[in-house]
């Protein structure tokens, strides 16, 4: 009962309220509130993620699984970021600085530590460049994917590839010099592309709304698990 009926009830009520706030202006505040609550729960749930991450890597270390040494890197980076993220906010370094004499060795150490634990700097110099580089790998993968489609030689893949080639050419200055390419690109984007996109969007809208309804009514309840 508490394990299955109550969640289904919560799901139904939350769904009905969120659905009706679209039509009943005095309820719009509920929308803001529910969104904020969901964000809070998500943020706190990160703790569960943290536990899982630490468990997976300590287990790899314990089992001495393949590549287990790299787990030290992850665990170290994780701890380092958490320490940096919390120490700097609590103004620890301000207190440390106040406690040591100007020009002393201590001050030098404190300054060095402060620089090394600068949360934002680590973010900028480690996370951002790796992120940008991972993203830029797409330039290579988009080429290899095109080649894969080319090799596939099915009707669908050929059609996809031809449309892709034309639109790609139509987007670069060199390709636009070929007569007709620019016009065909505009036509492809405006006519077949628009039409098909609408078809997909309408389908997705219907599928999503139907699944949402089934979730609210408890017909779709795999996420709750089968047993109590």
């Amino acid at each position, binding site marked *: 009962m508490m394990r299955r009926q109550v969640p289904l009830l919560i799901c139904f009520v939350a769904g009905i309220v969120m659905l009706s706030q679209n039509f009943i202006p005095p309820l719009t505040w509920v929308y803001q509130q529910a969104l904020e609550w969901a964000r809070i729960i998500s943020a706190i749930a990160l703790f569960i993620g*943290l536990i899982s991450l630490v468990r997976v890597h300590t287990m790899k270390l314990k089992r001495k699984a393949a590549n287990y040494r790299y787990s030290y890197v992850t665990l170290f980076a994780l701890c380092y970021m958490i320490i940096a993220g919390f120490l700097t906010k609590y103004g620890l370094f301000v207190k440390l600085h106040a406690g040591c004499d100007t020009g002393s060795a201590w001050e030098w150490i404190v300054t060095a530590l402060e620089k090394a634990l600068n949360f934002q700097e680590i973010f900028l110099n*480690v996370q951002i460049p790796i992120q940008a580089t991972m993203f830029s790998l797409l330039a290579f993968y988009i080429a290899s994917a095109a080649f894969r489609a080319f090799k596939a030689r099915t009707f669908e893949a050929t059609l*996809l590839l031809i*449309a*892709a080639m034309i639109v790609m050419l139509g987007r670069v200055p060199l390709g636009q010099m070929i007569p007709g390419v620019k016009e065909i690109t505009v036509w492809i984007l405006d006519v077949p592309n628009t039409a098909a996109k609408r078809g997909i969007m309408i389908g997705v809208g219907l599928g999503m709304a139907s699944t949402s309804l089934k979730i609210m009514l408890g017909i779709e309840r795999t996420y709750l698990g089968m047993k109590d």
Partner: protein
Amino acid sequence: MSLELFGTWLAALLTLCIFSFLYKDNPFYKFAEHLFVGVSAGYWLCYNYWNMVKPNLIDNLEAHNWEYLLPLILSAFMLMRLIPKVGWLSRWAIAFMIGSGAGLMIITYLQSNFLEQIKSTLVSLDPTGLPWYVVLNSFLIFVGVVSGLVYFFFSKAHTGVTGGVARVGVVFLMVCFGASFGYTVMARISLLIGRMYFLLHDWLGLV
């Protein structure tokens, strides 16, 4: 070595570590990957604490906004997941999130993906008093939308007329996918150019 210079070197070396994956998996990539996972998970955790939990939950509770007890309770239930015996309590919090998401999506998607799509189809279909090619394009859009929808029919086999129309739908779909594929290529190449510029300009100072 100044901190800034150290930062640039670090960023450049990590960039190269990631690029090395294109050749094959190797220790440099493994190092960068594991570092990235740890740093990003830690960053996200701290970021969410300082930008969500602290201002939106703790500060509100400290200000005696008691309605925030509810998200607090639901969050606590969520954390019960870590204790096997009472783990089922987390379903309450999950049900709240799924239910409110579902209620919201029904209307949002019926409006944006259904009504508005019909409206824009009808707007682009207005056939009165326009040159023949505009009317022809409108007709093609009509055919594209309808055949696309027929492709997504589930309760009818794709044979006979339905099959034929669905086949036309597939043609439209593939041209559409090709178009967005081709449209994205340049955007992706410019990302690569951005990284190359960082290596050659910011790091090596060659350009």
